């Protein structure tokens, strides 16, 4: 019973953060703050990937490295998606990001949300 409660709590935290970043990403995008939007959509994506991992394996990654190694080993499509978008998150402090890029990362977050049946 206690375990079930903990599981629900973890899931609800990840859902809440994924939504919060997603909504904030949209707000930043509407203000043409593309770099902020990229970072926020990527964070939403990461929360959704963690939720995906948690639902499948009942573990939560402790770092980006851990997350990457889990998805690389177990969920190749998700690995490809994260690996594709991660460099933009890393470079977001010194490169001007485009609206198109923010929309691509938002779409990737939406794809994972759909995969786990979550309304963002």
């Amino acid at each position, binding site marked *: 019973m206690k375990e079930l409660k903990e599981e629900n709590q973890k899931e609800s935290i990840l859902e809440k953060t994924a939504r919060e970043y997603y909504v904030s990403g949209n707000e930043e995008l509407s203000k043409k703050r593309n770099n902020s939007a990229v970072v926020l959509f990527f964070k939403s994506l990461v929360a959704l990937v963690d939720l995906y991992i948690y639902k499948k394996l009942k573990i939560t990654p402790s770092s980006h490295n851990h997350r990457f190694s889990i998805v690389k080993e177990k969920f190749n499509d998700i690995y*490809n998606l994260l*690996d*594709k*978008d991660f*460099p933009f998150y890393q470079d977001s402090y*010194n*490169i*001007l990001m*485009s609206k*198109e*890029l923010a929309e*691509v990362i938002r*779409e990737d977050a939406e794809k994972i949300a759909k995969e786990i049946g979550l309304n963002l």
Partner: protein
Amino acid sequence: MQKKSQKKLDLTYSEEVIDIVQFGSSIMNGKTFNDIDVAVIFNKIPLKDQLEYSQEIKRQIEKYFDKPIHMQSYDLYSFFDKGNFAKESILFYGKSLITDEYFSQNFGLIPKIQLNYSLIKLEKKDKIKFNYTLNGRGGNYGLLRQYNGKLLNPGLIEIPPECEEVFLKTLKEITSDIKINKTFKMSQ
């Protein structure tokens, strides 16, 4: 073993790809590097497609190297955008993983580095040492022969861009009076 590319790789890629270019410290002779920088240059297609095609290329390139691959995707508009701080490095030093030629050769330009040096203030033994370093001695090749450089005039040599580090490091041990000029030559 780490393959220090500048080699043609056997890659499968979309016809929307103009070139796949290795750049950064991994192509520089005499430089240590932690990852392999690769830029994929596309025709004008949606960014989403660029990124997906780049991922497919990355998976293939990973098989040739034992270091992480850092991919960047551009079309010609985003490549020349003022916000692209990597463009000079890609344009001047970048080498195609498709053709093993310089990326700039797509535009009819061959990059070269010219090193202008003066030996006037050196002692005779250092002048001789400098000469041996460039031209070799006793059957051993000098830097010019080893790295495909050439003497244009007394005091002026021309070298491939990727050899900048190794020439400067070696020659500056003998003289600090070296000026660097980065140029493009017309291919034809």
